[in-house]
């Protein structure tokens, strides 16, 4: 128990993450705590959707700046608002990247999709084999998700990975609960085909 308390004291971000993610807890104390708790998952979600680290960081930054305009709203509204803003950011960047890729292809230049060297640094506390397996699985998942139609991808990311409930997902996506269920069902079906090795 003491160890857990010490861990919390040493890692305010972890504490914030638990406070935000656990629905039984009170809403975040302030916007700082909310953003601290959500930033890592937001970044990973953006990375999966865009397949590019810098783009993902930019999308999260823009989403945070936009959310600050709504900081006077009740804390309970921040979660659907933030994911809704981030979803729009990802959609815009997806379109922009598609145009960029087309232009680059037309000009005969290859878009820069190298792995980030920082990501390649080994973690001394982790089993290298497991890290390698996770890295490969992460890439497979990203590829499969980016191959999905936009609404299905958004639905899977928000509902399945971020763990929003159906109503929150519908609010973030600007559609009905029924549409969320339909998109999710189709996304799962498509992913089952794309991720054959995961069965």
């Amino acid at each position, binding site marked *: 128990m003491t160890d857990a308390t010490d861990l919390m004291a040493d890692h305010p971000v972890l504490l914030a993450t638990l406070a935000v993610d656990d629905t039984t807890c009170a809403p975040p104390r302030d916007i700082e705590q909310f953003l601290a708790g959500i930033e*890592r998952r937001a970044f990973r979600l953006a990375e999966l959707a865009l397949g590019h680290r810098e783009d993902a960081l930019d999308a999260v930054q823009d989403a945070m700046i936009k959310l600050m305009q709504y900081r006077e709203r009740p804390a309970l509204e921040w979660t659907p608002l933030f994911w809704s803003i981030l979803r729009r950011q990802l959609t815009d960047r997806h379109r922009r990247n598609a145009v960029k890729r087309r232009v680059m292809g037309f000009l005969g230049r290859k878009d820069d999709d190298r792995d980030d060297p920082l990501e390649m640094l080994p973690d001394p506390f982790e089993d290298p084999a497991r890290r390698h397996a*996770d890295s490969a699985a992460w890439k497979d998942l990203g590829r499969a998700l980016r191959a999905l139609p936009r609404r299905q991808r958004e639905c899977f990311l928000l509902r*399945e*990975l971020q763990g929003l409930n159906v109503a929150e997902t519908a609010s973030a996506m600007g559609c009905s609960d029924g549409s969320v269920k339909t998109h999710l069902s189709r996304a799962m079906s498509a992913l089952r085909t794309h991720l054959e090795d995961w069965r």
Partner: protein
Amino acid sequence: MNGHDPNSHDLSTNAASTRARDLFDRASARLDIATANRLRLIRRDAQADASAHGRTRMLMPAATVAATVLAVGLVWWLPRDNTPAHIAPVAIEAAQDAYIADEDAEVYTWLAEAPVATSNAKAGAL
């Protein structure tokens, strides 16, 4: 476990979904230090940006009130001309006419009473 079994279909879907969620949770928790620092800076920048914006927004009404008070003060403080604009020139003109008329009457009176010089008077003087 054939391809038409709906239960196996659901199980494989759930397994893939669970695995994806676990992977996502692990990846979010195990972020490299450089990216975690970038995220922290991004968060602080967003908040600083919002604070600066908020301060500017709060200063705007204060500046408006100050400008209004200054304008009202200037209007109050500047000397005002109480003479009605349309009446003033007419009144001044009438006063000047009356003055000239008074002067004319005095001159005519003096001319009438003044001794007239004659040739005898001139000779006597010589």
